[in-house]
């Protein structure tokens, strides 16, 4: 009896904490958990008038239609290829930049470099699309006009898909360079300075020091980030693929990803069936990848895992 009373009082003592967390928990319930019920739309012939629950089931029809189109393979190929290429490239570029900025002596100089290089990361993709447009616009682009003056003609960048794998890769690396640099820099700063002192005494060159100390000690972080980004391989940066190519139909072959497809099918073509099927595949496969990646990470280093 007494025990019981004590427990009750204990529980009462926690109520203020639960109340504090409540608004956030409710928000997550609405924004993240309620939509999960909507996953069933992928298996239904959805109509806005009937709503989610009363629309008739159609089995796998939406998926059959989706995978019969060439679009489905193009968007999956684009999503996976860009992601994999960029994950590897970002690691190399980020590590290189981090090592180099650590060589810079002078607090002010370092701060200037960091501030400048991180700036693009703070910009919205709409603004980035404007920046790219300033160089590539068919009527007034800086590069377009240069090329016209030099060679007489300039490519119509927004009409020719062959340029875009490179443009998108450049824009992606340009935007994320500062982020990657700071990320790896913090790991380098955590390396015991006595290792470098000892190496210098032994007569090791700077290059040898980086090869034998910095890079080996960075590898666990790099591997961890690689695996975690592989977990995201089915998601793409909607803004980059939608805004930067200015939503140009002629470029869809190399700019369509799962996210842009889902958006276009849902809001431009009103094709809820195809759209929800693609969205469903992305959610489920994406989840499996993340859980898989996290399993691998927690095997390697428990503290780096998400859960």
């Amino acid at each position, binding site marked *: 009896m007494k025990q019981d009373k004590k427990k009750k009082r204990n529980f009462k003592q*926690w109520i203020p*904490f*639960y109340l*504090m*967390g409540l*608004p*956030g*928990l409710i928000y*997550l319930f609405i*924004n*993240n958990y309620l*939509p999960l019920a*909507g*996953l069933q739309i*992928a298996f239904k012939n959805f109509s*806005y008038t009937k709503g*989610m629950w009363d629309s008739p089931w159609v089995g796998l029809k939406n998926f059959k239609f989706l995978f019969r189109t060439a679009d489905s393979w193009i968007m999956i190929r684009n999503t996976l290829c860009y992601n994999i290429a960029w994950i590897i490239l970002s690691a190399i570029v980020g590590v290189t*930049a981090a090592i*180099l900025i*650590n*060589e*810079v*002596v002078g607090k002010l100089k370092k*701060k200037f*470099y960091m501030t*400048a290089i*991180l*700036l*693009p990361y*703070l*910009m*919205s993709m709409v603004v980035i*699309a*404007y920046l*790219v447009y*300033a*160089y590539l616009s068919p009527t*007034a*682009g*800086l590069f*377009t*006009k240069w090329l016209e003056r030099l060679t007489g003609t300039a490519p119509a960048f927004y009409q020719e898909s062959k340029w875009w794998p490179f443009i998108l890769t450049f824009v992606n690396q340009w935007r994320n360079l*500062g*982020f990657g640099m*700071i990320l790896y820099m*913090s790991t380098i700063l955590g390396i015991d300075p006595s290792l470098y002192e000892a190496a210098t005494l032994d*007569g090791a*060159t*700077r290059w040898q020091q980086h090869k034998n100390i910095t890079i080996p000690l960075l590898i666990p972080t790099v591997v961890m980030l690689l695996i*975690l980004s592989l977990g995201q391989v089915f998601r793409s940066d909607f803004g980059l693929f939608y805004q930067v190519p*200015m939503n140009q139909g002629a470029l869809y072959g190399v700019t369509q990803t799962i996210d842009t497809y*889902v*958006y276009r099918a849902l809001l431009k073509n009103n094709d*809820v069936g195809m*759209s*929800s099927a693609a*969205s469903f595949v992305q*959610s489920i496969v*994406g989840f499996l990848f993340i859980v898989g990646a996290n399993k691998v990470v927690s095997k390697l280093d428990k503290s780096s895992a*998400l859960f």
Partner: protein
Amino acid sequence: MVNTGKGWKVVANIVMVLCSFLALAPFVLLIIASFTDETVALLNGYSYLPEKWSLSAYEYIVGQASMLGRAYLMTILVTAIGTSVGVIITALLGYMLSNKNLPGRRFLNLYVVFTMLFNGGLVPTYIMYVKTFAVKNTIFGLIVPNLLLSAFLVMLVRNYFENSIPQDLYEAARIDGASEFQTFFRVALPLSTPILATVGMMMGIAYWNDWQNGLYYLNDAGKNLYTIQNILNNINDNIAFLASNATSGVNLADLPTTTVRMAIAVVGILPILVLYPFFQKYFAKGITMGAVKG
């Protein structure tokens, strides 16, 4: 001691100068383009050294104050409301989760983390917000979906409350008879300004930059609610947007569209450009704290 790494320093500085130049150059071009004379811009293209400078793009913007001014106010309003509400509920939830003895803590942690791993995707989210919550063409459509709380930031705050504030301080406050809410507001919050600044800045930038909620949840009927980013997005989609939404009847042909679009973009990023150097350290800190768990 021949190898002091002098060569490395030189190379590092050269590469960093180049990278900084690459990072800044497009912004410089954007700003110069907005101050270029329209006919010169059309003839020679955007250029770092235009033959003729002009303020006409900005004069045009001032003339369109009712559309652009309203959009600017919308951006400020959405950012202010979203960020303040967001920071408060993030801090409260983080504080709750930071309590090691809280019954059900494991479950609640998982409940939050799971949202980072799995989501229903755009289609169910969109249909729910539009059908069940009727946010289409309302200001809620700009503030609520996806941006108000991020599990990732909750985890950052939780870790800060857990590791960077001595737990004895909470105990002391409780022994002094402070209620849990008083402890939170008088002890935990004042001690956590660095993390709150980081979280606030990240959310503020996310709201200021957001165009996706406007793209999904606003259409022509809700164009009074457009933020600057939505206007920029619409100009991108269709340059005629500028003419058809001008305050007084304007012909598209008369509009200095080549330079005006750049001027609007400049106005849109101005606050970030001005404030960013002051907040840079909080932002960099946010990235390092998130390190692997980004």
